[in-house]
């Protein structure tokens, strides 16, 4: 019985908190460097003026992320239900949707939807849909909802398919209807496996949402870009970076805690 050659590093999210502290000192060093290099660092008044804007941007980023992932989950549930139907054309359509949204960059999807809607705005007006696509924020949330739905469908479907066959057999042999077997036996187990990838999906959308800044939405990155343009001081980018790391770290901490709590009944090997 061979001993593993490497001692496994204890897994933890405290690394992210450390990163946050590290970046805070990075900001300090950055400001020091800027003073040395002769350009104006972010002075006290500039910071005071900028903070409310940055916080507003942070709030908008959180809003976009949470809304898109939640709506995406609902849409994903629908897509999953469709995938489980014994109807090939529907399955093919859903798979094509997933390939389209998982195989293309978010920025391309956003430009296609935002500028595409603008191009056919006359048609949309006739269909009484223009009021929705007119607002850039709506376009961003719409894009990320579809995007997240595709990924979440894949994650949960993958988890379902990888469940041991015995689970389905046992449930059905007990006389449980298919739907009950699915919702009461299979899905809970699949969701447990899917927790980690779903947590990743949340952090992924948090970061990807920054492309909203490219279509006039003042999320965290958009606000930072605006401030840098006004002051010509790219310290605001470092501030925004620190805020993103803290945000992603916080999300990761929460998701890990939920995962630990929900899998506490499993043995360490599980």
């Amino acid at each position, binding site marked *: 019985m*061979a*001993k*593993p*050659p*490497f*001692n*496994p*590093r204890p897994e933890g999210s405290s*690394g*992210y908190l*450390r*990163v946050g502290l*590290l*970046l805070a000192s990075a900001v300090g060093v950055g400001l020091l460097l800027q003073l040395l*290099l002769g350009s104006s660092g972010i002075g006290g008044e500039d910071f005071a003026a900028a903070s409310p804007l940055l916080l507003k941007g942070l709030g908008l980023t959180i809003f976009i992320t949470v809304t898109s992932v939640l709506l995406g989950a609902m849409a994903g549930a629908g897509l999953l239900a469709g995938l489980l139907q014994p109807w090939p054309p529907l399955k093919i359509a859903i798979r094509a949707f997933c*390939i*389209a949204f*998982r*195989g*293309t*960059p*978010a*920025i*391309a*999807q956003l*430009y*296609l939807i935002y*500028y*595409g809607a*603008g*191009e*056919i705005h006359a048609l949309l007006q006739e269909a009484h849909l223009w009021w929705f696509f007119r607002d850039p924020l709506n376009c961003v949330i719409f894009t990320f909802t579809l995007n997240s739905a595709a990924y979440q469908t894949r994650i949960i479907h993958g988890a379902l398919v990888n469940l041991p066959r015995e689970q389905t057999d046992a449930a059905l042999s007990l006389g449980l209807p298919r739907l009950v077997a699915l919702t009461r036996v299979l899905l809970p187990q699949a969701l447990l496996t899917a927790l980690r990838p779903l947590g990743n999906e949340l*952090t992924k959308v*948090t*970061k*990807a949402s*920054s*492309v909203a*800044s*490219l279509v006039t939405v003042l999320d965290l*990155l958009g606000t*930072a*870009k605006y401030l840098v343009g006004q002051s010509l001081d*790219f310290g605001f*980018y*470092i501030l*925004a*970076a620190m805020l*993103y*790391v803290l*945000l*992603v*770290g916080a999300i990761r901490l929460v998701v890990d805690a939920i995962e630990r709590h929900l899998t506490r009944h499993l043995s360490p090997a599980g």
Partner: protein
Amino acid sequence: MLQVLQFGPGGWGGELAAGLAVTLALAASALPLGLIGGLALAFATHSRRAWVRESAAALAGAFRGIPELLTLFLVFIGGQRLINLALPLLGLNGRFEFSGFLAGTLTLGLVFGAYASEVFLGVLKTLDGSSIEAARALGLGRWPVLRFIILPELFRLGLPGLSNLWLSTVKQSALVSVVACDELMRKSYLGATSTGDHILFYGVACLCYIAITTASEAALAAWHRRLSRGRSRG
């Protein structure tokens, strides 16, 4: 409509094809950087020295937590600034431009490395020491053991995770359009704003990305199957 896309001076077809080539070049150039970086970070995490461990964890965490677009801005501006500082110190007088392509390659490589380190760490945990012990018993030194035993295993077991990273990198290359690098996304953007045919250009760009990702996925899956043949467990 299709006339806009024709190849040659009248249409944008040639421009888009050139952009596609640059996209692939970006991802391909980032790959070696990311793999080396990921390996370095993974091994640094097992270092005996605490400051090396902590720095590696902090670096990896930082680049996993910062949006790629922001990292791109930081590298683009910061890189140029560093070059401007470094050149006089080295006594060179010319001007070196830190191009959008270089910033893109470095950014994509850094992000790839940060995530790859996680893949490698996960694989390292599952490795058992039996093959290494056998190699040591045969008298192989540290470096050959690394090169012929550890790295191939790392690569084979990590291939699924690394394949995902490759796909991410190809998609993230679209962000480099924002620093005026002439890859596919930027060409589509220029074509769309110039002609007003937004749906056409962005639609074609999306189709190209789907083609690249689907082809990559198939090729990588086949490669993984080939590497795993003759093994009892994946």
